[in-house]
C-alpha cells in the first residue's frame, strides 16, 4: 500500500506553499477584489516562471511532462491562497482541451505558449442559466468562423485564446478562437468572486479553428471535464483547509465569558465537522487524482466523488468559518469572505453539486451521463 505522494511531490508542495505565502498573502487577493483588475499579473508571471503552468504539458510541447499528482498539489495551494489567477481556466481546461483534441499543428502552436504562461487560455462552455446540456448549445460553427454568445466565461478578460464549445452541422466541436480579433466582443461580468474575472463573449463570425479538425464525442468532452473536476476538487480542498485553519485560530484566540470560544462545544463540534468533511474530501481527492494519473476506468466515479466531496467541504468550511467569527466574520476587513466567495464560484464553474451527484451514481451503476 502506497496511497501517498512521493518525497519529491511533498517537496513541491512545501515550495509552492512557501512561494504563495510570500507572494500571494490575502492582501494580494484583497487588492484584486478592491480594484477593477481581473488578476494579479505579476503573480501570474512568477507562477509561470516556476513552471507551474507547464506541469502536465509534455516536454515535446515545451512542458515539464510531470503527472497530475504534481498538478493536484499545486491546485490545492491555489485554493489555499485563493490566488487571483486564471490558473484553472488556462491549465486544467484550455491546455488540457488542446492536448486532448488538438491536431499536431495546433498543439505545437499553442501549448508552448500556454506552458510558458506567455499566453492565457480559457474555455467557453456556458450560454444560459441551468445545467449545461452539450446537445443544446446555440453557438454555431460555420466554415472557419463561429458565432454565438457565451457567458459567463472565466478569465476571458485576460485570456489570449479561448476554446469555444459549439455545434456545426457535423456535431459537437471545440473551436480555438484567438481573443484578439474583431469578431470577438468581450464584456466584463461581475460575479460573486471579484478576485477573478468573468466575461460575456459575443462571437460574431469570429475566426475559429476546430480542434483536431473534427467533431468530438460528448463522452470525450466529459472525460476532459472529469479530469478538471479532480483538479477543482483539490483547489476546493485548499479553500476548505484555509477556512478551517482561520476558524481554528480565531476560536483559540477569541475569548467570551472568560474562556476561549473554541472551548464551547458548539464551536468545537462545528470545527470537528469541518475537519471530518475536509478529511473525506482529501481522501476522495487522492482517489480522484490516482484515477486521473493512472488513467483508470474508475475516473468518472472517482472524479464525481472528489468533486462532490470538494464542493461540500469548501462550502461548509467557508460558511461556518464566518459563523465562527461572529460579527467580525461579516466585515470586509476580515478575510473570511474570500473563502466564501471562492468556494461558491468553484462549485458552479463546471456544473454544480446536484449534477455531479447524479454523475456519481451513474458512475456507480455504469450509466452514461449527458448533462453537466
Amino acid at each position: 500500500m502506497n496511497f501517498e505522494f512521493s518525497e519529491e511531490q511533498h517537496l513541491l508542495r512545501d515550495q509552492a506553499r512557501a512561494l504563495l505565502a510570500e507572494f500571494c498573502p490575502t492582501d494580494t487577493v484583497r487588492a484584486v477584489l478592491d480594484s477593477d483588475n481581473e488578476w494579479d499579473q505579476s503573480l501570474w508571471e512568477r507562477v509561470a516562471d516556476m513552471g507551474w503552468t507547464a506541469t502536465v504539458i509534455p516536454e515535446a510541447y515545451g512542458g515539464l511532462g510531470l503527472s497530475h499528482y504534481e498538478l493536484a498539489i499545486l491546485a490545492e495551494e491555489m485554493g489555499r491562497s485563493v490566488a487571483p489567477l486564471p490558473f484553472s481556466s488556462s491549465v486544467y481546461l484550455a491546455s488540457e482541451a488542446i492536448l486532448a483534441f488538438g491536431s499536431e499543428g495546433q498543439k505545437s502552436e499553442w501549448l508552448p505558449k500556454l506552458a510558458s504562461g506567455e499566453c492565457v487560455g480559457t474555455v467557453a462552455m456556458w450560454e444560459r442559466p441551468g445545467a449545461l446540456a452539450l446537445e443544446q448549445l446555440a453557438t454555431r460553427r460555420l466554415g472557419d468562423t463561429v458565432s454565438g454568445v457565451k457567458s459567463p466565461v472565466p478569465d476571458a478578460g485576460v485570456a489570449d485564446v479561448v476554446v469555444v464549445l459549439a455545434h456545426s452541422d457535423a456535431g459537437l466541436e471545440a473551436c480555438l478562437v484567438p481573443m484578439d480579433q474583431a469578431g470577438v466582443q468581450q464584456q466584463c461580468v461581475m460575479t460573486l468572486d471579484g478576485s477573478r474575472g468573468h466575461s460575456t463573449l459575443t462571437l460574431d463570425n469570429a475566426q475559429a479553428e476546430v480542434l483536431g479538425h473534427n467533431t468530438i464525442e460528448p463522452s470525450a468532452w466529459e472525460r476532459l471535464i472529469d479530469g478538471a473536476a479532480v483538479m477543482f476538487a483539490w483547489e476546493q480542498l485548499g479553500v476548505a483547509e484555509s477556512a478551517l485553519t482561520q476558524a481554528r485560530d480565531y476560536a483559540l484566540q477569541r475569548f467570551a465569558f472568560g474562556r476561549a470560544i473554541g472551548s464551547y462545544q458548539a464551536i468545537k463540534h462545528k470545527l470537528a465537522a469541518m475537519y471530518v468533511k475536509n478529511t473525506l474530501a482529501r481522501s476522495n481527492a487522492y482517489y480522484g487524482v490516482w484515477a486521473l494519473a493512472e488513467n483508470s476506468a474508475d475516473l468518472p466515479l472517482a472524479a464525481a466523488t472528489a468533486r462532490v466531496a470538494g464542493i461540500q467541504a469548501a462550502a461548509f468550511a467557508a460558511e461556518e468559518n464566518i459563523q465562527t467569527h461572529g460579527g467580525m466574520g461579516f466585515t470586509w476587513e476580515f478575510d473570511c469572505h474570500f473563502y466564501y466567495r471562492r468556494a461558491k464560484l468553484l462549485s458552479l464553474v463546471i456544473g454544480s453539486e446536484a449534477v455531479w451527484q447524479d454523475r456519481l451514481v451513474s458512475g456507480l451503476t455504469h450509466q452514461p451521463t449527458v448533462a453537466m
Partner: protein
Amino acid sequence: MDFNDTPAEARFREEAVTWLSHNVPTDDAFWALTPLEQAKLWQKRKYDDGWACLGWATEFGGRGASPIEEVIWRQEEARYELPTNFFLIGQGMIGPTLMAWATADDKARYLPPLASGEEVWCQLFSEPAGGSDLAALRTRAEPDGDDWIINGQKIWTSGAHYADYGVIVVRTDPTLPKHKGLSYFYIDMRAPGVEIKPIKQLTGDADFNEVYFTDVRVSDRQRLGEVGQGWQVALTTLMNERAAIGGGIGKMDVDLAIAIAQDVELDGQPAIDNAAVRTRIADWYVQEAGLKYTGYRSLTALSRGALPGPENSIGKLVGAPKMQAMASFLMDLLGASGAITDEALAVKAGIIQRAYMGAPGMRIAGGTDEIMANIIAERVLGLPQEPRLDKGIPFTDVPTG
C-alpha cells in the same frame, strides 16, 4: 379555528386601511427625497394622526393600542413599500428603556420626538473584544464632578451616522465582577469627542459603524438607573431587541425557488420535475409554512392577551440558515450563471446572490445561530446555563486570551 379578525379587530383594521389609503405619499416629490428624509416625513405624518408607536401611551406620542392592533397596523402598513427601518431600534428598543428608567422630565422631553421621527436614536453596546459576551465591554466612564468622561470604542452600531442620540453601556468600576461594574447613559451623538466610522461588510455595503469616544463629557443626569446597575438597564433594551429586529428575511422564499426551478433545466428536463429539487423545496416549504403558522399561533395568543416569549427565536434560527441554503441551491440550479451578480445580467436581478452574501450576517446579527439555540434551550426548555468562569471575579481578572 379561523384566520379572521374578531369584530373589534376588523373595525380597527378598517380604520387603518382607510387612513393609509388617504395618507401614504405617492407624489414624485416624496420619491425624490433620500430614504431617511422619506422615513422622517412618513413617520411625522403618522405621528400627527396618531398612527406612530401605537402601543405607547398617548402622553408619549402613542395611541395606547393593544399588541394585536400593533400587528394589524404593521400588516397593513407593510402592503406599501415605505422606509421604516430607521426608527426600529429607537422606537422598538430604546423607547421602552426610557419609559422604564428615565425621569418624568426626560420621558416628556425625549419620547414624543422619538415617536414622531424627528429625533433618531442608536444603541451603543457591542465592543470589538466582546462578541456574544456583551458584558465584557471595556469602554470606561470616569467621574468628573457632576459629569462623566467616556473613553473607548463601540462597534456594530446601526445608524450611528444619522442618529441624534444614543444609549451606551460603559464600565464605571473595573474592580467589580463583569456584570456589576457597568452603568447606562444616553448621549448626544454630536458631542465633542464622538467619532463615527462606517464598517464595510463582506457584501460591500456599510450598514454598521465603529464609534470612538475620546474624552466625551456626559452629565450625570443622563444616567439611566443607578451607578453599577447598567446591566439591568441594558437587559430592558435587549429584551425588546428581537421584537425590533425579527422578520425581514427578504423575498427568498419557496415561490422564488419554484419560479427558478420552472425556468431552468436539469438533466434535460425542467428542474421542477427533478426529485432532488422537489425534496429540497418541500423541506423549505415545511419550514416556511411552519414559521408562518407559528406566527399565526402567536398572533392568536397576542389577540387573547398573551405576551410574546422567547419562542420567537425560532424565526431567525430557522429562517437565516434556510435563506443561505436556499440561495446556495438556487445558484446551483443556475449553473455557472449562478455566480453572476450584475443586476442587469443576473437572473431575478441578482437577488439570489445578494441573499447568499447577506445570509451570514442574518445568521449573526441579533445573536448567532448558537446564541438562538441557547435561548431556546435555556429559556424555553429550562436547561441550565453553561458554567460561567467569569462569574463573581473582578473584571480586570477575567481571562481574555
